[in-house]
């Protein structure tokens, strides 16, 4: 009852100095959270993005770690074990099992040359992922540098640099990708045969051709985004304030421009990965992707098309893998954008 009607009587204890705890409870300001902590907090709350991240890590392990422990290699042809269904054994393998030895099962069966399909799927995922990751990194490097230079320089330098990107932007990419990869492949194969370019032979000249083609065509988008970011930030009040306080150019770039750009750049790069994987699978389908016996997910699916009525699992597994890889990278990129893009904060 006493709660309902506040007493008018003054109490002595109300006028005592506040204790430390009471003071603490009156502090309204919370601890300042920096950009990264804030973004990560939002990312962690996003369930779809976190599930995608788990998938990405699992796929990475599947592609980069697992083949090292697998008892078969991706080019090893096992005699009498051609075209096996999942968990089937070849003639020689069955004989070994009957003799009491253990044979590692072909979880995904084998292909028409008797190669274990599970390990080929892993290698294919590895190649496709590598194409996506390397291309995205190269595009970031070239595009961000170009865009930053154009944005900083301004004036006629910016004008000329941007007209070049305007023209490149309107060129239909898929046509040029096809023609470029046709033209680059033999040129790089010649180059790889020269002494001193042995490392190219090891990597495969046409894998390098694919990297080059993607970078040549896709840096434009990144350059445009970086430039517009730099332009916006250059004009912002806090940069003017920093300059007025006597900050050097280098400090402004490092402390203000780079930290504010980087969110957008990371998001754009992440979304570049699935699009590179997507395009590589198209090229493989047209026979312009990575060369045999190296598999990519696209070429695995393409090889399986002919025999899809008899061996559908050889088609469905790589097809599923491509779709899942592109899907999780897209979802994760969307999550990153929601978390780190300052424009979408609200």
């Amino acid at each position: 009852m006493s709660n309902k009607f506040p007493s008018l009587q003054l109490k002595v204890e109300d006028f005592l100095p506040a204790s430390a705890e009471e003071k603490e409870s009156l502090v309204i300001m919370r601890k300042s959270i920096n950009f990264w902590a804030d973004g990560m907090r939002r990312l962690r709350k996003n369930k779809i993005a976190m599930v995608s991240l788990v998938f990405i890590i699992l796929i990475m392990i599947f592609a980069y770690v697992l083949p090292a422990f697998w008892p078969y290699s991706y080019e090893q042809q096992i005699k009498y074990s051609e075209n096996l269904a999942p968990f089937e054994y070849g003639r020689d393998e069955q004989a070994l099992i009957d003799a009491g030895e253990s044979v590692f099962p072909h979880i995904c069966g084998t292909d028409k040359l008797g190669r274990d399909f599970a390990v080929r799927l892993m290698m294919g995922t590895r190649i496709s992922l590598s194409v996506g990751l390397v291309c995205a990194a190269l595009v970031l490097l070239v595009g961000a540098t170009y865009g930053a230079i154009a944005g900083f320089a301004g004036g006629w330098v910016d004008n000329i640099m941007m007209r070049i990107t305007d023209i490149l932007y309107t060129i239909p990419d898929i046509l040029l990708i096809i023609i470029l990869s046709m033209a680059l492949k033999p040129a790089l194969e010649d180059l790889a045969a020269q002494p001193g370019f042995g490392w190219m032979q090891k990597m495969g000249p046409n894998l390098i051709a694919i990297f080059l083609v993607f970078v040549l065509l896709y840096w434009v988008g990144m350059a445009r985004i970086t430039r517009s970011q730099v332009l916006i930030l250059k004009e912002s009040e806090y940069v003017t304030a920093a300059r007025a306080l006597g900050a050097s150019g280098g400090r402004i770039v490092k402390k203000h421009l780079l930290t504010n750009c980087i969110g957008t750049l990371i998001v754009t790069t992440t979304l570049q990965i699935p699009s590179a994987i997507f395009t590589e699978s198209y090229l493989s389908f047209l026979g312009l992707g990575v060369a045999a016996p190296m598999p990519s997910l696209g070429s695995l699916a393409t090889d399986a098309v002919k025999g899809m009525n008899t061996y559908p699992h050889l088609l469905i597994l790589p097809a599923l893998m491509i779709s899942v890889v592109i899907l999780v990278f897209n979802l994760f990129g969307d999550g990153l954008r929601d978390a780190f893009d300052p424009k979408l904060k609200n």
Partner: protein
Amino acid sequence: MKKYIIKRLALGIASIFIVATLTFFLMNLVPGGPFVAEKSISKAAQEALEAKYGLDKPLGERYITYMSDFVKGDMGYSLRQRGRTVSGIIFSKFPVSAKLAGIAVVLALALGIPLGCISAYNRGKFFDNFIIVLATCGIAIPSFISSVLLLYTFGSKLGVLPTVGLNTMSSYIMPVTALAIYPTAYITRLMRSSLLDVMGQDYIRTSRAKGVSSFKTLFKHALRNAILPVITYVGPMLAGLMTGSFVVEKIFTIPGLGREFVSAITNRDYTMIMGTTIILATLVITANVIVDILYKIIDPRIKLK
């Protein structure tokens, strides 16, 4: 405005010119020639053929000849399909690709716009999540995968749809579906985000405050503005479907422009490569220029620079 249109057109023409030049020199870098693959013909006959089509001349001279002929509207004869002009082949194949792409665009719009609206209207609810997951999957699946899977399920396993060519109405179903999946998913996402963006505007709140039902607000006030980005996507989508359809055309053995382009490259049919590339590039670039100009006319909020 006039200045902007002229600038945009000039850029477009410059891009077409650059595509043509790049293609010309790149395709000549590729080893082999149109007549090398034919083992049946002798060395002398091969040289005679090359002389006939002017392939023995230096590259620079051939480039100038080709470009000046092209400006006059002459794309030359196909090197592999003897006696047929490049423009003739393109004219006969173009309608096939255009029809496929056209149907796919209509389908994508008819499905994508309502799905996007439903999704935005039910924001955060089950329907919204369901549609968004579906649309994200649609974007993630490359069209050759969806074509092959369709072919496998409906063509060979169930055997209900024809797998080759475009002879009957039912043979359109699979190629059009395979082509339309990506744009449908894309339009759904575009429509949803655009509608949500518009729904947050002040004038929508005003109309809600004045007592207009939320259904009417959505369709009468929000949709008109929200549909703009979708409309501007139609041009590039149509052009993209026409150039991107070669995979689908290859899988379903449809005699379209895309298949012609791919086989021209593998056959080193130089004049055909040039012809198809320039036509397809012109299509994409024209669509983009028209959309850029239209966008500025439709939406007065975009400032002209």
